[in-house]
């Protein structure tokens, strides 16, 4: 990537096909640094699929997607290995994203503290509650140092206090130029958020 290329997320005229049927077509969006986008729409309309397209785990049937160099994705699954502790689980992922082992651990500690599960550092993942597992997965996103966060129902299983804890986390990320695209059935602690509604009419989001 050339230095002059802006860091942003842009999708143009994207179409998605899954299991042999077309989920949506003609979706466009632009998300600039510091912005947050909430994707809404009825069940089955393709919100999760859109996030996967943006993450790059699904190939778009049509259209182009331009994404920043580093992306973090939180899907329905937490991707935690039950036999490993929280730190063992996450140090691997943090290590992939950080320039050194020491920095990875430092980032991870900060992330784990921010979501409120530092006491669980040495606890095997199989002993965690579903809310704690979700927060662990969120810590992975936080520790990745990625510019774009794609969050699919990030607050599933979280109590009100835990959800509120995320407010400053999201704000800090955006203040540093990060971007967030999320779907959620419950309100997220995000301020000045754009909305993209999938469904009968696919609309572009204004930056």
């Amino acid at each position, binding site marked *: 990537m050339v230095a002059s290329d802006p860091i942003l997320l842009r999708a143009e005229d994207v179409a998605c096909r899954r*299991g*042999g*049927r077309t989920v949506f077509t003609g979706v466009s969006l632009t998300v600039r640094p510091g912005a947050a986008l909430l994707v809404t729409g*009825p069940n*089955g*309309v393709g919100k999760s699929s859109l996030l996967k397209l943006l993450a790059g785990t699904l190939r778009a049937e049509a259209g182009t997607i331009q994404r920043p160099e580093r992306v973090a994705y939180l899907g329905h699954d937490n991707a935690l290995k039950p036999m490993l502790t929280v730190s063992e689980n996450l140090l691997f992922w943090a290590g992939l994203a950080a320039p050194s082992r020491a920095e990875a651990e430092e980032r991870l500690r900060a992330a784990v503290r921010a979501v409120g599960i530092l006491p669980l550092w040495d606890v095997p993942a199989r002993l965690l509650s579903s809310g704690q597992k979700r927060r662990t997965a969120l810590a992975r996103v936080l520790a990745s140092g990625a510019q774009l966060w794609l969050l699919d129902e990030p607050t599933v299983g979280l109590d009100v206090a835990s959800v509120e804890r995320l407010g400053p986390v999201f704000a800090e990320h955006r203040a540093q130029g990060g971007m967030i695209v999320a779907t959620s059935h419950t309100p997220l602690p995000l301020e000045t958020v754009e909305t993209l509604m999938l469904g009968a009419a696919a609309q572009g989001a204004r930056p």
Partner: protein
Amino acid sequence: MFAAFATGLYYALVASPIDYLQRDTVRIMYVHVPAAWMALGSYTTIAIASLVSIVWRHPLADVCAKAAAPIGAVFTAVCLVTGSLWGKPTWGTWWQWDARMTSVLVLLFIYLGYMALWSAFDDRQRAARAAAILALVGAINLPIIKFSVDWWNTLHQPASVFRSGGPTIHPDMLTPLLIMALAYMLFFVTTLLMRMRAELASQRLEIAAERRAMALEGVQ
């Protein structure tokens, strides 16, 4: 009409080899050898269709590959059975592990695996993609399998050396052999087109059923 033509040609030719040969048993060769060729030819069709499917994503390519598989498997089975029947008088046993028969047997297993993969998925698109990959992997492997079986056969030189088809095919036998091969090919193409039509029809039924389900859900 095309079907009638192909079948007519096919049956007409079964009668003709009787004119050429004295010994009844060797007549089986006219069924056995072209079957072996078609077993391989069908797989080549599947491999090419799979390549087209992967590279150009042409929807008919998957349908073609899926439809061709059972036909190829039947050719393979016919080759094995007729080979066994042909060999019994010569070998004294119902089966002999010679190079060709063994290679064809492995080819049969590959066909069965390929067909099993198609049936393993609910999602038709995933089945098509996975099967295409498998077909190409198999295609790359086939020459090696053939070579290794030949190598293995020379290593364990069997007591009675039996080569189906003979080292050279007598020119008198060549013409009916080629005509039979042509008839087999016509049979293959006809059956393939029939099966492809059937496959497309069943796909349309499935899409219609899916639309009904989606309409009830209230989506789109």
